[in-house]
Structures are given as structure tokens and as C-alpha cells.
């Protein structure tokens, strides 16, 4: 495929990725529906359509393996869709493994490699085995006085739905409806919408009766639980005639009804699909529409737009400076006009900024879906039954953050299942429900998004943790006895500590939590642990909503201006040096009765000593999660919206800065990484070990 451009290929892979994610979501929904004993044919249909589209795409881009795999999977889904096969748990298992298989296939197709994928081949064999087991049941359709003309044009799928409705002993109705040709699209949609409340529309066909020039008559076949009177009451109108289709008195040989596709393992359902797409326009149309109204945007383009907004805000501040100057020079009239213009500009710019930010936002559900699959997989592997409870999947967060979140969250969930949730026997002994529960909660809290991973397992074994830390030489024996609770729990983030005795595939390698913590910190977030022995463990992640633009407090330290993200600032106070006490080698002040550790920012950063004596200084209270630290600064300039640009790669190892931002008049200010500073000061990298009791007063 030499004529396919890189860009098109890129698009193809990202679209394929999206389709696979949709498929995965469908499967999870199917799983849930299955467990609660509900049947939802639209889910299998959607999965079928997803795979069908993928097959088409693969053909277009010469992705042979992807095409072949999709083709086989499509057949299976078709069997399920048409009721030739039951959705048994083992079928669902195979379906779930296809998502991972797709991931592998996509990776090698993308890199243009040609290597063996034994796991995929194996899956192929499992698909074949399932396909071979397909059998069909006899049709009960013949038991109704159905118009053979109508039956003859039913698609295989419609036939299956008809059969399945009849098997559930529903009543069949014929709705003969006259539509005005000019409004038929909308009227038909309305009709279907209303009829849906009563049951399922199996098919609809033009009757072919002469009704007038501008009208068309359709027969809708409806399966419903409701009786005729209810339907007439609800749907009745001048243009509708509703009749019940009676059951036949005597049995008719099934051969009278031309059932197509009665051969097991039918051929490719392509034509059939096309028909379905046409016939079931009501189902297909919405998804087609959403496709055309969505554009895929490279996030770098949004970054670029955001940069322009940042530069415009510099123009904005210049405008207000000019207005001030005009006022000072006596041109009040002009100054007022310019100020008005400035305010207008300011407002529009704000709207634009919000608009761009909104585009970057994606629901956390994207990553939660992937996690749900992981939970299913791990719980199977470990033979532990897990109930995953997700709340707040609709909470939105910056796309870039979502991408970076999936690995840390995956680790945390693995840990929770592997280390947290006890074996079923153990749970029975202590009187807990046999199935362990993992809760994944997300919610917005001001400018932050909180994500909690909670399990109802055994809790963190503090003794074992301390023992491990001492054994591996991370802390000295005498230190161990002095640790307070939070400090002990914080040991799980120390590299190389794992409380599991044996090393295994999952999480027992002790490389998990420290990496989780580092990754979360990189995103400007913090992670807190709470644990109760025997009751469970809760890990709470606090993250900024976006990385692109932040409100910041501009401060001066010695002669340099710094920006402190406002989301991490809880308040700013006047600094009174006489209030400073030294507690355990740490400087603290008392704020409203609680002790607050403080840190001279100039000294921490090693800025050159100021020449002038500073009389009036300030304390900016930075807070992240449950940790607070007072940063002593020389001057507060106020709040401003800033676009953070990352420092160059050669400066990435410099601790304490989240990036830099333009301050106007060509100057650049460094943006403080409050999380890193709090971490550095309070975790004792700079001074002695913190005493959390002092921290929280």
C-alpha cells in the first residue's frame, strides 16, 4: 500500500483503536447484562457493527491479519446476533480475549512487522471451535397468521428477533400507518420512538397500497407485552390502524414459511449487513450521524491554540497598561474606551480558553473501561471473585492526563486484587462476602479530580511492611520504632519493597507503587494511602484537571518572579518572623491554632542572597492532598492565567519546577511544582523527617 500516506495510516490506526475500545465497552456491557439476566440484542449488534467496520478498514489499508481476524470474529458475532449460538460465559471469555488480541495485532501491523502471534493463533482456534458448535432450533414463527409476503422479506436478523419474541410469548401486532411523504423521516422516527416503549419493532415495510400522491403506507411489525387496548390508547391516531396478529389454530408445516439462512455456519453476512443497515435505519442512523459530526484532533494542535491564547493574554495585559498610561496622561475619554475594549477582549479570550480546554477534556470512563477488563482478567487468573463498582466515570479530565493514568491505576488495581482481597476461604472465615469489592470512584473537587481505588480486603500489614523495610536496609531498626502510622503506610512507595512473600507475575515484584507515585507526581498529582487492618485499603489520587493552562499566583522571591499554581495554594498570609518556632529541627508557625511547617523558598532554591533587607514578607500556604507547607516569599503580585511550557529536556532533572511561562514584556517566569516542593521538604530530603502530628495540628 505504497500510495497510502502516513497521515492516512495514522488516522486508520487511531480509528481502529477507537473501534476496539467501543467493542470493549460493548463486551463489558454485555457481561453486565448477562450477569443480571437481561438480554439486550442491541449490544451484540453494536459489537458486530464495530467488528464489521474494522474489517472494512483493514481491507482498505491492507492490514491482512487484522482483516482475517475481524472476519472470523464477525462470523461468531453474527451467530450470536442471529441466535445460532447462546452467549455462554465461555463465549464471552473468548470475546474478551479478542480485545487484547486486537491490541497485539494492531501493534505489529502498525510497526509493519511480520511475526508470529501464538496467542492470536490460539484464539483463532477457539473461535473456530465455538463456530463449529453452532446449532439451530426449530422455528415457532409458523404459529402466527403472518403475511407470507412480509415473512419473505425479513432479514435473517429480523427473523431471529421475531422468533425470539415469539418464544417469550409476546403478542404480535401490525401497525398500519400512513405517513406524509414530506415528513416521513421524522414522523417514522417519532412513531418508532413511541412504539419502542411497548416493545420491539421487528420490521417495517411499505404496504404498496395506493393511498394518495403525497402519502405512503407502512406496516410495522411490533412485538409487545401490552394488550391491544393499551396500544391503541398510547399510539392511536387517525393515520394508524393497529391489529393483533392472531395465532394459527392448526399447525402449519414450517416449510410453508420460507426461512432463509437455515444452514449452520452461514456465509459471510456482508449483504445481509447492508440490508440490515438499510432496514434498521432507526438504529444505524444515529451512529452514522455522530461519526460525521466528530473530528479527530491531534492534541498538539490544541496545544498550539492554547499557546496562541497565552500570547493573546500577553497582548491583553499590554492593552490594559496602555489604558492606564492614557489615563495618567489625561486622555480619560480614550482610556475609558480602551478599557471597555480591553474588558470585552478579556471576556472573549476567557471563553476561547474555556472552549479549547473543554475540547481537551475526556471522561475518565475511557480509562475505567480498560481497567474493568483488567479486573476481569486478573480475578480469573487469581481465582478470586471480584465485584468492580465504578462511580463518576463521566468525570472529565485532560486527555493527556487520562493517557498517563491507565498504567498507574492498573498497578493499583492489581495490587488491590493480589495483595488486598483475601482468598474466598479467608473471607468466609472473617464473615465477609465471598466476592471482594473494588471501588473505583472519581469526582471533581474544585480544580482537581480525585480518583479513589478502594478495596474491602485485609488492609496493609504494617508489621510486615516495617520488617521488610528494615530487612532490606531502607530504614534502621531504631528508626522503625519511631515511625507514625502515615509514615509506615508511606513505606509502600519506597522502591523495592513488596510485602508479598513470593514473586509472581502480577504485582509481587515490588516495582509497582514507587513507579505509580512517580507517575502521579509527574502529572502534578499526589497519592495518599489509608488502610484499616481487616477492613480494606483506600488509595486516593488528587490530580489537576488540566495541564495546559492554570491560574497561578505570581510571587517574587529575592529578585526572581515565580508562578505557583493556584490550585495548590490554599491561602496567603503575612509573615511574622517572631512567630517562627523550631520543632524537631523544622521551622513551623502557628496558623489558627495549627502548626504549619514553613520553608524559605529563596533558601530552598539556593537563590543568591538579596541585598536589601526585606521587611514585609508573606507565607503562601501550598496544599496538596492532606499535606500543607508554608512557602516564605517576598512579594505577592496577584493571580494570572498562565500557559505552562515544559522546560527543555536538559533541565528535566532539575527538581521543583513544573515548567516556565511567559510573563509579558518578553520575560519568562518559572512555575513552581508545588507537589514536588512539598514532597521534597516534608519527606525529609531537605531536612529531618516530618512529624505528621505537627502537620495536621
Amino acid at each position: 500500500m505504497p500510495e497510502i500516506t502516513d497521515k492516512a495510516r495514522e488516522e486508520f490506526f487511531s480509528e481502529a483503536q477507537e473501534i476496539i475500545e467501543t467493542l470493549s465497552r460493548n463486551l463489558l456491557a454485555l457481561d453486565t447484562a448477562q450477569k443480571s439476566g437481561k438480554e439486550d440484542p442491541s449490544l451484540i449488534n453494536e459489537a458486530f457493527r464495530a467488528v464489521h467496520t474494522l474489517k472494512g478498514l483493514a481491507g482498505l489499508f491492507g492490514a491482512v491479519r487484522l482483516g482475517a481476524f475481524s472476519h472470523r470474529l464477525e462470523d461468531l458475532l453474527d451467530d450470536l446476533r442471529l441466535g445460532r449460538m447462546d452467549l455462554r460465559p465461555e463465549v464471552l471469555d473468548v470475546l474478551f480475549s479478542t480485545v487484547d488480541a486486537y491490541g497485539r495485532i494492531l501493534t505489529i501491523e502498525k510497526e509493519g512487522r511480520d511475526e508470529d502471534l501464538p496467542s492470536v493463533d490460539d484464539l483463532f482456534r477457539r473461535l473456530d471451535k465455538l463456530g463449529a458448535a453452532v446449532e439451530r432450533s426449530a422455528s415457532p414463527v409458523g404459529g402466527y397468521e403472518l403475511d407470507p409476503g412480509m415473512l419473505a422479506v425479513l432479514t435473517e436478523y429480523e427473523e431471529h428477533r421475531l422468533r425470539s419474541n415469539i418464544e417469550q410469548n409476546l403478542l404480535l401486532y401490525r401497525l398500519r400507518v400512513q405517513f406524509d411523504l414530506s415528513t416521513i423521516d421524522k414522523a417514522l422516527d417519532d412513531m418508532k420512538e413511541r412504539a419502542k416503549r411497548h416493545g420491539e419493532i421487528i420490521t417495517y415495510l411499505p404496504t404498496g397500497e395506493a393511498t394518495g400522491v403525497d402519502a405512503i403506507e407502512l406496516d410495522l411489525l411490533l412485538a409487545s407485552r401490552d394488550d391491544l387496548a393499551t396500544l391503541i390508547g398510547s399510539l392511536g391516531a387517525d393515520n394508524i390502524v393497529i391489529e393483533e396478529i392472531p395465532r394459527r389454530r392448526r399447525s402449519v408445516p414450517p416449510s410453508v414459511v420460507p426461512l432463509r439462512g437455515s444452514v449452520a455456519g452461514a456465509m459471510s453476512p456482508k449483504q445481509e449487513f447492508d440490508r440490515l443497515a438499510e432496514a434498521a435505519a432507526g438504529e444505524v442512523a444515529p451512529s452514522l450521524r455522530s461519526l460525521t459530526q466528530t473530528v479527530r484532533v491531534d492534541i498538539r494542535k490544541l496545544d498550539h491554540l492554547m499557546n496562541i491564547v497565552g500570547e493573546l493574554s500577553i497582548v491583553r495585559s499590554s492593552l490594559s497598561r496602555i489604558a492606564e498610561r492614557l489615563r495618567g496622561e489625561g486622555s480619560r475619554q480614550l482610556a475609558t474606551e480602551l478599557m471597555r475594549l480591553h474588558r470585552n477582549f478579556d471576556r472573549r479570550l476567557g471563553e476561547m480558553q474555556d472552549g479549547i480546554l473543554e475540547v481537551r477534556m475526556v471522561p475518565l470512563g475511557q480509562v475505567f473501561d480498560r481497567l474493568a477488563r483488567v479486573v476481569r482478567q486478573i480475578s480469573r487468573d487469581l481465582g478470586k471473585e471480584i465485584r468492580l463498582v465504578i462511580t463518576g466515570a463521566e468525570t472529565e479530565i485532560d486527555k493527556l492526563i487520562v493517557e498517563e493514568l491507565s498504567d498507574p491505576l492498573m498497578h493499583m488495581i492489581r495490587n488491590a486484587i493480589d495483595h488486598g482481597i483475601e482468598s474466598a476461604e479467608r473471607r468466609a472465615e472473617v464473615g465477609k462476602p465471598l466476592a471482594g469489592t473494588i471501588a473505583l470512584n472519581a469526582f471533581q473537587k474544585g480544580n482537581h479530580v480525585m480518583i479513589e481505588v478502594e478495596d474491602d480486603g485485609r488492609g496493609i500489614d504494617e508489621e510486615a511492611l516495617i520488617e521488610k523495610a528494615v530487612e532490606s536496609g531502607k530504614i534502621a531498626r531504631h528508626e522503625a520504632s519511631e515511625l507514625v502510622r502515615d509514615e509506615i503506610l508511606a513505606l509502600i512507595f519506597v522502591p523495592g519493597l513488596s510485602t508479598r512473600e513470593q514473586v509472581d507475575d502480577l504485582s509481587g515484584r515490588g516495582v509497582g507503587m514507587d513507579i505509580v507515585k512517580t507517575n502521579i507526581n509527574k502529572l502534578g498529582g499526589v497519592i495518599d494511602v489509608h488502610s484499616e487492618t481487616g477492613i480494606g485499603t483506600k488509595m486516593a489520587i488528587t490530580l489537576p484537571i488540566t495541564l495546559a493552562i492554570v491560574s497561578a499566583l505570581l510571587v517574587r522571591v529575592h529578585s526572581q518572579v515565580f508562578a505557583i499554581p493556584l490550585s495548590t495554594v490554599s491561602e496567603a498570609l503575612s509573615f511574622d518572623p517572631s512567630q517562627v518556632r523550631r520543632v524537631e529541627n523544622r521551622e513551623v508557625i502557628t496558623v489558627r491554632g495549627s502548626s504549619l511547617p514553613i520553608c524559605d523558598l529563596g533558601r530552598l532554591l539556593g537563590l543568591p542572597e538579596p541585598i536589601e533587607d526585606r521587611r514585609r514578607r508573606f507565607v503562601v500556604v501550598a496544599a496538596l492532598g492532606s499535606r500543607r507547607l508554608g512557602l516564605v516569599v517576598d512579594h505577592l503580585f496577584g493571580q494570572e492565567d498562565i500557559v505552562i511550557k515544559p522546560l527543555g529536556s536538559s533541565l528535566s532533572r532539575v527538581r521543583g519546577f513544573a515548567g516556565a511561562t511567559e510573563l509579558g514584556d518578553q520575560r519568562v517566569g518559572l512555575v513552581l511544582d508545588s507537589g514536588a516542593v512539598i514532597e521534597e521538604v516534608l519527606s525529609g530530603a531537605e531536612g529531618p523527617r516530618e512529624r505528621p502530628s505537627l502537620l495536621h495540628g
Partner: protein
Amino acid sequence: MADLTRAPAARLSRRGSESAPLREFLMFVVGGELFGIELTGIKEILSPPPITPVPRSSREVLGVCSVRGLLVTVLCLRRKLRLSETSNSRRSRILLTTSESGESVGLLVDEVRQVVRLQASEIEAAASTLGSDASEHVVGVARPPGSFVVLLDLRSILPS
């Protein structure tokens, strides 16, 4: 730049043959000495904008500045080459380059001179012309009429 390091060193010839490819080097002064960097690596020559120091960075990092919205890490070439300190003057310039990792890096020099064109045969191996500190960045020396210029390997100067 890579082929430059591998270029065979030869004695300076009077006027090299016209057919040999010419290399263009930008000459500039740092710490009172004349240096050259191949022109292809230099994107722009700037009057220094205000530079914001980055605390805790290494000594040769002067700080960061913004060039039309682009964040640039500014290195002091004088410190990088461990030459004697001189104060910045009106003539100081920043040579804007891009490192292999894509980072925009500015090199602060004391003064920019002209561009010289050199043939491979005009570039001599640098024996011990300089102290050992700078020699790791030196690819050779050249003697254009009336001067002596130390040619630097841009890639080895830039952070990897």
C-alpha cells in the same frame, strides 16, 4: 557534523582546489578566543532577550528565555568551555540551535564575527592547542588569513 569529526586532518594548503566542497563556519569570540561552529547547525543569531535563571541547574545553564513563544534553554559557552569569565557586553549574542532531542538551545557568545568558508583540507587536527577541558568539543583548527580559529563540534556541546 558527524563527517566533520571523521574528516582526515591535513596540513593547511595555500588555496585548496575549487572542486572540493566548502564548509561554512560561523566565527565568534568567547573568553577572548576565536571559535567556529558549522553554520548549518545554527538557526538564528539573536540579541539576548531577558534570561531567567533556573535555580539548581548546572553552572553552564544561564537560564531560559522566550523567543517568539519558543522556550529556549540558554547555555553560557564560556562556562561550557571553562574559559575565563568576562562580563557580557552590548556585543553578546545568542546562537539558536536545536539539540538532537529537539530541545531549543541558545549558546551565549561574547561577539559574533563573520562566516568563513573552509575546505576539508584546511581543517587541521587539534593537537593540544587548548586546555584539556575544551578539547573534547574541538574538531579541529583552521587558520584563515590573519587569524586562528578553533572549530567546535556543536553536537558535543549541546545537551544530549
